[in-house]
């Protein structure tokens, strides 16, 4: 396979400017990640320790095989919500390795607010279980939550039910589930461990019940202790609600490892694999390649060259529809098909993408979408050329491929372009975003122009006057602020519109883990010839 030839001048001013800007973004991302994971008040940590409890990070380290990768999902969930009261949504989700097996882990974090579930906590768990179901990943729940944050109960209620529904579906699909209850699991939360195939409960700190002692007292007048009502020995020895009682967290985590070790070895979907080869071009150069301004153009091939094995890429239809780059490469040894944008989509580019996706789907080659797209081309000529029809074809093909799809926003991902490139609504297995990226219903600048015109028109209609320059400026600012804030990656990731923000240089590792995880589910191909659209 031929190696891509890079045209990047690493000594140019633009490269240096880009690099400085992107390193700044990467540092900021890291700062936010560290804060979300580790910034906890001293007294919270002390309280955990006093009760013989470990932090969620300590639990993960004891649980996972040492020296193995952990793909944490949505680590910045809720960073922009609830006044920052619920970093990470007070739950950690991710794919880790336990006794050699990939396992989707959801782990409650009771270091703040007793691990209460906020609306985004619930959505985060739902997303994790959906990924588990879609990719056939066994699930391990480390249960430690005081229950729903009741002031936001209405936002939690319906979505929360989907957690339990998912556990039932996982079980029916033959995907093993296991829970370790290390804290309270009350009311609806009681089903989180109880609907798992196997359930372990820690003595003294783990409790499972529909209503705790105060509620029971109020309802029936019974005076009971936590232990009597829902403790480890009661559930493991009397009610059968749990299967194992353990003395402490370490013993529980060790038992989890042992049980996971008894699960059948995962069989992976057979895809074309070869020896892993590091990229020829240094991924570190990505910082200098990605523009410091979303409007600046760059060649997505330069990104491909820095994430795929040996920087090798077989480009399909290189002379046709040049704003869409398509072709095959190996990533961490796995053959994938890549669709990357070089800006706006034209009919030829969309048709090329449709043809390429059909080819990959027929051959069982997973797809990677590198979003660098402002949308579909507009205008008389293009509508006459069937741009809407060709876009619809691309959506139709993309929606119905049976191979795993994974999206990464490397720059802009706007308008219908995000849909065409397998954005979050199109059931990709995973969506990741770079900190420089932006995603919104249309480009912020166009949106500002459109909305400003609309408002000015309204003003004219309603007040029969021209707006003053000041009014125009204020309107532009208002609209601009809204778009800048809501298209920002921190906002999007906080709202779980993706599965996590990643440093560009981590892309290769993240995609390796994500594709590897995706291959746990079989690919059921639909027979049919490839149309030369």
């Amino acid at each position, binding site marked *: 396979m031929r190696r891509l030839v890079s045209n990047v001048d690493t000594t140019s001013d633009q490269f240096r400017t880009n690099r400085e800007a992107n390193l700044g973004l990467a540092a900021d991302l890291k700062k936010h990640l560290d804060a979300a994971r580790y910034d906890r008040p001293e007294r919270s940590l002390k309280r955990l320790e006093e009760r013989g409890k470990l932090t969620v990070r300590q639990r993960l380290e004891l649980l996972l095989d040492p020296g193995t990768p952990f793909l944490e999902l949505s680590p910045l969930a809720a960073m922009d919500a609830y006044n920052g009261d619920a970093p990470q949504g007070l739950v950690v989700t991710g794919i880790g390795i336990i006794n050699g097996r990939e396992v989707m882990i959801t782990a409650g974090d009771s270091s703040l607010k007793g691990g209460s579930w906020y609306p985004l906590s619930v959505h985060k768990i739902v997303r994790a279980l959906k990924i588990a179901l879609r990719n056939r990943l066994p699930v391990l729940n480390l249960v430690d939550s005081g229950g729903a944050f009741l002031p936001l109960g209405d936002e939690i209620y319906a979505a929360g039910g989907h957690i339990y529904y998912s556990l039932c579906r996982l079980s029916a699909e033959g995907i093993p589930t296991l829970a370790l209850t290390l804290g309270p699991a009350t009311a609806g939360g009681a089903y989180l461990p109880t609907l798992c195939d196997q359930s372990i409960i820690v003595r003294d700190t783990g409790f499972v019940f529909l209503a705790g002692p105060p509620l029971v007292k109020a309802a029936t007048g019974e005076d009971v202790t936590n232990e009597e009502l829902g403790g480890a020995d009661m559930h493991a020895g009397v009610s059968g609600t749990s299967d194992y009682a353990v003395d402490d967290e370490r013993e529980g985590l060790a038992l989890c490892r042992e049980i996971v*070790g008894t699960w059948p070895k995962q069989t992976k979907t057979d895809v074309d694999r070869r020896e892993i080869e590091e990229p020829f071009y240094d991924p570190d150069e990505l910082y200098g390649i990605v523009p410091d301004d979303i409007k600046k153009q760059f060649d997505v091939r330069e990104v491909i060259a820095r994430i795929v094995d040996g920087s090798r890429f077989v480009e399909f239809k290189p002379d046709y529809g040049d704003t869409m780059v398509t072709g095959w490469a190996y990533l961490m040894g796995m053959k994938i098909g890549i669709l990357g944008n070089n800006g706006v989509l034209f009919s030829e580019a969309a048709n090329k993408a449709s043809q390429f996706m059909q080819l990959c789907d027929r051959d069982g080659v997973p797809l990677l979408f590198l979003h660098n797209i402002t949308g579909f081309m507009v205008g008389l000529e293009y509508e006459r050329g069937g741009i809407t029809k060709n876009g619809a074809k691309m959506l139709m093909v993309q929606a119905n491929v049976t191979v795993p799809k994974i999206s990464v926003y490397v720059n802009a991902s706007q308008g219908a372009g995000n849909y065409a490139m397998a954005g979050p609504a199109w059931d990709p297995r995973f969506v990741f975003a770079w900190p420089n990226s932006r995603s919104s219903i249309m480009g912020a600048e166009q949106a500002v122009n459109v909305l400003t015109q609309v408002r000015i028109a309204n003003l004219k209609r309603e007040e029969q006057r021209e707006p003053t320059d000041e009014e125009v400026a204020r309107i532009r600012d208002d609209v601009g602020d809204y778009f800048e804030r809501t298209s920002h990656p921190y906002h999007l990731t906080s709202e779980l519109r993706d599965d996590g923000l990643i440093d560009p240089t981590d892309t290769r590792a993240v995609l390796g883990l994500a594709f590897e995880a995706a291959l746990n589910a079989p690919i059921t191909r639909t027979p049919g010839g490839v149309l030369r659209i």
Partner: protein
Amino acid sequence: MKSVLIANRGEIAVRILKTLHREGLTGVVVYHEADAESLAVKLADKAVELHGSPPVSAYLDVEQIIAAAKSSEADAVHPGFGFLAENGDFAQAVIDAGLIWVGPKPDAIRSMGDKIEAKRLAEEAGVPILPGSPGALADVDDAVEWAEKIGYPVLLKASAGGGGKGMRIAHDRAECIDAFTSASNEARASFGDGRVFVERFVERPRHIEVQVLADQHGAAVHLGERECSIQRRYQKVVEEAPSPVVDEETRQRIGAQAVSLAQTVGYASAGTVELVMDEQGEAYFLEMNTRLQVEHPVTELVTGIDIVSEQLRIARGEELGYDQDAISITGSAIECRVYAENPDEDFAPETGTLHLVHFPSGEGVRVDHGVQSGQVVGAAFDPMIAKVVGFGADRTEAIAKIRKALRETVLLGLTTNTAYLERIVGHRDFISGATHTGFLALYEDELATPPLEVDEERALICAAALASPWFDERHTLSTVHSALGGWRA
């Protein structure tokens, strides 16, 4: 002679079978149930089960063995060593049963079995003897009188003794009085014969022995000497041929004396004249062993003569057919006795299953053994598992070979002394030939198992972890996970 019954077990049974098979003879072994899975039984043409409790008694049961020979149609009996090998009555019973006895005549066995008689005959044959009482001591006073005549230190020895039993050293009169009493008590308890004699005690003695072959027609040769000074509690541990301190002249002199003794007693088989050598290089008669020795392989390697084969020929009545000039000593051979014992726990015998057995082979290595993987080593018998021998053009090469062979001797499942043996033959005083029978006691601390190096310990932990079923291979990571290691975003 068509079929030979081996009245023995273990490595020597296997050793004898090898020669029998090479010469086209049928090999019959007798065995106790405890040895049913042994290599000797597996390799034998016929195997006859003996009964007895404890198991060792089966191999001492003359009647059962003679009956086994008859039933298996063997026409000769080879006793090996130990058990009944030096039992004149057994030899007689074999002969009386019309079978060929592969060994010296019963009379020769008996006369050499009595140390006082043997010493008298040795003197008669011109073998130097240590100054001492001419016969058994009458009482304590007699002992003290003789001791003072010889000069302290003296050694009091049981006439019927062996293996160090009934032996005491006395440095003065008081010790001599105690030694006489305890030696005779022990001798009476062990051998039913309390007779004790006294002789000069040799300080830092070397154990030298001469291998002789004598036929039934009066011809006899010697096959040079062996040195067996490395002993623990009078049990030989390391043996070699030739001795690093015996020159050709001494070799011929002590050899001729040994031949003379053999002829004096009408000896007709392979036998060994054991000598004690003092620091001045003077060798004195100790005893004569009227059987094949454990350590015979070192002599075979340096002379090229198969001693078992020669025993068979002599037993058949054949003439030796060569004289002393035909015997030459070439190279050097060192034998180590591998025991199932724990050198770090006062050499306590080890029992258990030998899960894995692998012996070295190749040029310069000979291993005589009777074990195979999966075999149980019980407490019923002597804990010797194997004899590992290294030989080469000279002693330096032989030492290199034996050390390598010991390191490559794999016996897993119970503790053995292979590493201890390697430390002995690698010791500076062994390498320089400065050995004596007190060697192992003198260097006890130096020869103890050294602690493992840190990286060796780490390697062992890794090996055990990777071999252990605790860490199942089903848990192997995918290529992607392997490549990423402990990656975190």
